[in-house]
């Protein structure tokens, strides 16, 4: 991706010249794309200095220029996640109730109104999904992952992921994050942190109930299947009244 803030613009009336210039520009774009180095999507880039885009440059080396995630396996895609979810996370990082020192440090002294604005900014973005990262897994494990995500295991009190995170896995307004486009390392890490009590959500903490019923193999299976899914054509989260939720969640007020 080109990160220049201003490029030459061709606007001459001579058609021949404009065709030549267009061709040159196209060639320049192609060759710069060909020369693109790894990690270009994590370079600082913005159009206007007095903009929120310029203000959130502090996020781009991990989450990508448009929140699409980067080639680094751990950092999650944040673009298009519901603003309520992103705001809850930023607030939890600021207040220390969600612990991840690099994030706790960055947002420690930012006011709530600004965190909300940042959440809305990334929530509104719809960048293309980064390439999938597929980790090797046995077919049986993948099948188990598919079953957990799409059906759950009612006998063990495990609801299907799609029941809350959406049929397309793009989350639900206002508080449930999409799972599409997340890397397996991130999914495994978050579920494990929930299991051991390092990550929490507002009570009643439904994800704690879910994670504490999952085995390590379940977690690997879920991550393996999720990472194999094609990116959804419409990455927008579902509307909140779409479904009834199987568990009460403090961060997702029920409308019924």
């Amino acid at each position, binding site marked *: 991706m080109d*990160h220049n*803030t201003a490029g030459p613009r061709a606007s001459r009336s001579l058609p021949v010249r404009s065709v030549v210039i267009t061709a040159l520009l196209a060639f320049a774009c192609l060759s710069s794309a060909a020369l693109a180095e790894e*990690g270009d999507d*994590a*370079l*600082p*880039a*913005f159009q206007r*200095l*007095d903009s*929120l885009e*310029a*203000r*959130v*440059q*502090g*996020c*781009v*080396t*991990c989450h990508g220029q448009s929140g699409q995630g980067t080639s*680094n396996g751990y950092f999650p895609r944040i673009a298009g996640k519901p603003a309520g979810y992103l705001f809850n996370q930023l607030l939890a990082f600021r*207040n*220390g*109730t969600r612990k991840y*020192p*690099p994030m*706790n*440090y*960055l*947002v*420690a*002294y*930012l*006011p709530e*109104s*600004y965190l909300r*604005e940042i959440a809305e900014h990334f929530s509104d973005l719809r960048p293309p999904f980064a390439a999938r990262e597929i980790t090797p897994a046995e077919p049986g494990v993948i099948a188990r992952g598919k079953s957990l995500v799409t059906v759950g295991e009612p006998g063990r009190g495990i609801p299907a992921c799609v029941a809350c995170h959406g049929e397309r896995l793009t989350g639900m307004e206002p508080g449930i994050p999409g799972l599409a486009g997340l890397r397996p390392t991130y999914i495994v890490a978050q579920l494990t942190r929930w299991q051991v009590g390092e990550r929490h959500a507002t009570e009643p903490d439904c994800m704690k109930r879910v994670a504490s019923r999952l085995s390590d193999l379940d977690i690997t299976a879920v991550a393996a299947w999720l990472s194999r899914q094609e990116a959804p054509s419409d990455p927008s989260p579902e509307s909140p009244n779409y479904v009834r939720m199987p568990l009460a969640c403090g961060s997702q007020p029920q409308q019924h």
Partner: protein
Amino acid sequence: MRRRISIAVVVIVAVVIVAAVTVYLVRPGMLPKLEEPKQNATTEIITRGEYLARAGDCIACHTEPNEAAFAGGRAMPTPFGNLYSPNITPDDDTGIGLWTADEFYRMMHSGISRDGTLLYPAMPFASYTYVTRADSDAIYAYLMSVPPVRRENKPHELRFPFNQRELLIGWRTLYFNEGEFVPDPAQSAQWNRGAYLVRGLGHCSMCHTAVNRLGGSSESREFEGGMIPNQNWYAPSLTSNREAGLGEWPLQDIADLLQVGTSMRGAVYGPMAEVVYNSLQYLTDEDAMAMAVYLKSLPQRDTEPRPPSQARLVEPTVMENGRRIYERQCALCHGEEGEGKAPAFPPLAGNQSIMMVSPVNPIRMVLNGGYAPGTRKNPRPYGMPPYSHILNDEEVAAVVTYIRVAWNNTGTPITPQQANELRKLIPE
């Protein structure tokens, strides 16, 4: 058609006239004067106390994150073990509800608690001793007005022998001079106000004066800077023009740095961002300027011209590597020539905090990034991203070396080892 147009014109003219007359009639001077809300003596003293408590940043140490304000319990890691700040809400059993104003003043002025025990100098009574009785009474009135919270104090966890409070008698003899602030008649009222705030409630010397192995700081070295124990940030000297000495700064930039958190010359990060966020942003413009006037007047060291840049002494491959990383990762915000886009993105060329003898702060900024604090005058600050996951130790060393010596900057090169040591620390 013509007629319609002329009717429209008449209507528009009439609307404009009516609007103009309305604006004239309701202009500020013509509106009935709103009564200023009457402030009784209690309101006045509590409001003043709240302001002073903010200037003293009581809340930062006496509040656990996410817990009730002033209820204490926050761990204060020191080289001698953990201290825990006490509950200073007016709860009768676990807080300071039964304290009198006299007892509160003795604590502020002499560092002696209500029951006669000597306070550990994590409580900055060596600074607060400058606070006037009237201001101490106002802070007392304010603290008595906040909601009482029942929360037992947590015992300190100091190693032997530092857990023996008798040792404090010796510490006090060495490092504590009791006495209220005495204005200097040779200086302006503004300077004296600034000195009172900087040396008293602001307790700036707690970080900006080096702390020795006994946790004491020597008055003759006041504001000469030092590493902040256990936080691993370098608090720059406020007296050296090679560090955060402000002798060469315009007053407005100093006041902005303190109150806004950013300025045309740089912004605050790390522990100083916390101070601005919790305390200094609430200062009046007058008080911020008074502190600026005093800080600018501190005795200046290192005023001789800076030495020439060491760029030519740096290994050319390191320099070239640093330049390449700079152009790819940094130049968009900080400019091809390090000129920055102040106040959004600080300039690096000529930036004292990058050239200081201690390279700790620029290395930490490259590794962990940072946001300036969101303040009343700058509620939507710009931020720098972390690079610890993108650059290895050699690359961090190369780019930090580059910004320390390029553009006639007069810093010194740093080693990959220095980057590696700071990489191991948790960002804070």
